């Protein structure tokens, strides 16, 4: 399945896009998307291991399952406030 992944802050700058699409098996989890992003976009290798992930605008865990309607986002360390 194709899953869209939102990018923010330095991740957006490194990828040169605010959204990317990655190809995943149908029962993929957040762990899988993490690996797939780095494989498809090597520039993101320096940020993805330190980032959290969100699915459906909520923080996800590594075993959170995805489907092709999932809104996935890479959340680099936050610095609001």
């Amino acid at each position, binding site marked *: 399945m194709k899953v869209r992944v939102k990018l923010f802050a330095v991740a957006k700058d490194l990828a040169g896009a605010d959204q990317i699409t990655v190809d995943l098996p149908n029962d993929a989890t957040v762990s899988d998307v993490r690996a797939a992003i780095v494989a498809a976009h090597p520039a993101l290798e*320096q940020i993805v291991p330190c980032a959290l992930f969100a699915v459906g605008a909520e923080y996800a865990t590594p075993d959170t399952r995805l489907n092709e309607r999932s809104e996935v986002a890479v959340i*680099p360390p936050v610095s609001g*406030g």
Partner: protein
Amino acid sequence: MIQLTNEPIDSADLLDRVRHPEAGAIVLFLGTTRELTAGRQTVALDYEAYHEMAEKQLAELEAEARSRWPVIECIIVHRLGRVPPTEASVAIAVSTPHRGDAFAAGQWLIDSLKRDVPIWKREQWADGSTEWVHPGLHNQ
């Protein structure tokens, strides 16, 4: 209530909105852009949010604060876009019957916001360079 805005934050308006006949204490926290950070001069900070998720997270923080302390009114506003020195990027106003709770809730809210809410700042240095701030991250 919570709000993300691209406009300057009107602190006096926030204070008016948390005033209440049952409130004996109001604490307002403002996070303001510093001109000097570790000796380097900042022209402004630019803030970006994962808008939908940040709003959800802020609403959850407000609900959690209300469950922990006897909060009467609570307003959390985060400004996005460019915030020049001395202007506020974030404002938290809390009213409670007694002062200890207003301080505790206000401090917990800003600490939690800075830890959890998907908002990012980029330094606009005076030398023209820019830098995303990602605490704990090396080799940007």
